[in-house]
């Protein structure tokens, strides 16, 4: 609850003034750890008594200061995040955790670390492979991270506190899934823009507050009166990280409804849960290395190529079916190697389901929005005419 605002009204405030709650918490003496990407195990940070805070960029803020330290060949989202950090948007942070997610994130770790000069920083050396020895290695990496955080916190992170953090994050993920259920009706009870704003709001507040907020929103949305089935196209957005509603708003403004996604923040990050294990690190390692299906993690081909595509992209196909998706917008940032190399395979897989795909390459900037609008509108027209490929 913020300024007596609840539910989607609170989301709107948190979205527009991202970091509002973090600044409040800082004033109250809490320590905040900034992080990038879905691959930072938030359970460990929370169990240590810190508040994880996801660093986001801004599509409407021109990148200026970052260019004096970071090459423009880096993913534009990462550059924008760094630019916002240099401009003081996240001056409440006490630490920074960066995962070995992709080159743009991993190879800029030192640039972040030396420029922000925060009291704490750590790189989580997540492997690319997910075989048994990689999982064993990743558990050791997580224990190194845990030990490092313990030194910074000046206290031990107990198994009990980790197990509690696992529970509360699993509740968080379950609530997001419940929210997504409200998108299955036709028309959906909640718009894609509202969902996107909610997920951005949640990544900037403590997880328990996020759970309360999500519960409020679910209650609020369920009270909405159902309306007759619509004629709008049902769209799924697939891509890396979208932390701004511009694209989704554009699609919905063009007459379609965004009903599903494979995004971060989004289903890719929220749907997988941590298994409850005797040593909580085991369940955490399994989730982050094996359950999150992102192009940055290499999955071995074990049978035919068709089965391989099913293994890599089957969850997208399942969502297309479950959410009655009529078309997919594949939205990839320039300079994104993990997703860029997926495009031909992913596109052909989704199209093989009979679902048309619009592939958009973009730069994380409002300056391209007019061009995107034209492409989206043309795609929707083609879908309406029964085509779209």
């Amino acid at each position: 609850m913020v300024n007596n605002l609840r539910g989607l009204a609170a989301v709107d405030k948190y979205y527009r003034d991202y970091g509002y709650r973090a600044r409040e918490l800082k004033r109250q003496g809490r320590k905040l750890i900034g992080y990038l990407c879905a691959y930072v195990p938030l359970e460990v940070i929370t169990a240590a008594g810190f508040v994880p805070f996801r660093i986001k960029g801004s599509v409407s803020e021109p990148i200026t200061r970052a260019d004096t330290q970071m090459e423009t060949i880096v993913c534009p989202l990462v550059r924008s995040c760094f630019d916002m950090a240099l401009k003081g948007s996240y001056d409440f942070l006490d630490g920074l955790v960066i995962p070995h997610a992709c080159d743009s994130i991993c190879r800029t770790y030192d640039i972040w670390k030396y420029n922000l000069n925060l009291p704490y920083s750590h790189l989580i050396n997540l492997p690319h492979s997910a075989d048994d020895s990689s999982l064993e290695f990743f558990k050791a990496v997580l224990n190194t991270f845990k030990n490092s955080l313990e030194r910074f916190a000046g206290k031990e992170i107990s198994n009990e506190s980790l197990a509690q953090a696992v529970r509360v994050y699993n509740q968080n993920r379950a609530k997001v899934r419940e929210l997504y259920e409200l998108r299955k009706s036709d028309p959906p009870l909640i718009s894609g823009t509202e969902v996107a704003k909610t997920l951005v709001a949640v990544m900037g507040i403590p997880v328990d507050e996020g759970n309360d907020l999500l519960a409020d929103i679910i209650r609020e949305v369920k009270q909405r009166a159902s309306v007759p089935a619509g004629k709008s196209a049902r769209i799924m957005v697939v891509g890396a990280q979208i932390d701004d509603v511009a694209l989704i708003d554009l699609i919905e403004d063009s007459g379609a409804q965004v009903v599903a996604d494979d995004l971060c923040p989004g289903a890719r990050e929220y749907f997988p849960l941590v298994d409850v294990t005797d040593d909580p690190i085991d369940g955490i390692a399994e989730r982050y290395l094996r359950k999150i299906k992102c192009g940055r993690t290499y999955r071995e081909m074990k049978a035919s190529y068709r089965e391989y595509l099913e293994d890599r992209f089957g969850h997208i196909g399942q969502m297309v079916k479950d959410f009655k998706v009529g078309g997919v917008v594949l939205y990839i940032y320039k300079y994104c190697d993990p997703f860029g190399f997926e495009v031909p395979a992913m596109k052909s897989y989704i199209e093989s389901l009979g679902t048309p795909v619009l592939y958009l390459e973009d730069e994380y900037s409002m300056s391209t929005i007019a061009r995107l609008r034209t492409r989206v509108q043309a795609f929707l027209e083609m879908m309406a005419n029964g085509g779209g490929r």
Partner: protein
Amino acid sequence: MTGERKPRAHATEAAAKVPRMSRELTLRAQRAKQEGKLVAYTFIACAYDEIIRAMDIVPMWTENYAGICAAKRDAQRFLEKAEAENFSRSLCTYALCGLGFDAWRAELGEMPPDAPWGGQVKPDMMLGSGQMVCDPRNKWYQAAQHYMPDVPVYVVELPWPPYEADYDYREVQDYYIKYIVQQLSGLIGFLEKQTGKKMDWDRLSELVDLTDKTWNMIWEAYELRKAIPCPMDTGDAMNTMVPIAFMMGTQEAYDFFKDLYDELQHKIANREGVVPDEKYRLLWGGGLPAWFALNDFNYFNSKGAVFPVETTYRNVEAIYNFDVDLTRISHPLEHIAWRWLKYWTYWYDRAKKRPGSHPDVERLIQYIEDYRIDGVVMHEAFSCRTWHPGLIWQLNLLKKIYRDIPSLILESDIVDISSYSEADTRARIDAFIETLESTRRG
């Protein structure tokens, strides 16, 4: 990676031999296919050189082939083919060139027309890698399977500990070593399955020893470049990288560097420098070269500037300089793992000693001092997020913790010539030379 339209002038006889050697690598893979031997797509700096050679796998170095296409200024048609397949032109252009080639070859059922040096043969397997740098190493071959779904891929993980302030890498090195050994064992299992034969461990040990010997010889030869005048510069090192990157674990590579060592000794004795009147000594401080514009090194030379040292492709250290005695590690996979980890952490201890420093910057400082460097030149290749993020920051940090040294960052690409302007590049080099001159005059 040589073979540009007009051969660039080489300072050493050794470097002049490289174009033929490089071509032979491509032809060898073509012959192997005809003879029924197994060919693998391979990446440089993946620590599996001795393993594939011990298993008689013939490597087809895909980065090398893309570099050849670039040096011949014949890569654009493959980049465009990849773009037509929906790969973004902002991705790694080594990979795009290779994928465009593979897609075209699959479409035709034969080599694309007039393929440079006869073309890149369809492999029997592809050996990728997961590392702290370079996403394309685990994405490229996976993407290539879209055009060769019958060709298996194996990805071997090769991490090293990050440089952190709050713990020493030695605290974690044991579990890194264990993991790398497990990964290399997995690779051997994969190769045994593909070839139907068992690893010859004695042969592998011999090749590991040969590689150690070669690393030492490379290091000793390159150390001779400290001499004034400098007998060999980075322009040549972008040729002599071929035996480092693509021929490790062969007697040919060792002999090449022994010859280079002897040649450099001879040049030093005769005071033969790269340029007759050496005015400026430069460090190639980062970035892969523009393979289509290696003549820019000659342009530097024409201004009296030489590059006695570079960080790029000098990915060896003398084995005897490591803080573990590798000669005591007899298990070949453990030996490879320790060599890998100790190379990547080599500058960590030096960095810890200087407040605010970092291993990458410490390496620049060491070279600046050891090679009596006047200025630093880097190259930012737009398509590569492996080596090129951090160049600006490294120069900023260098100036902050060490001294204000003239520097230049050139911008273009490794393969995509459309990113390059010779006139602009040379104008920037001219301006940099003027800065060096005014610094020299004080």
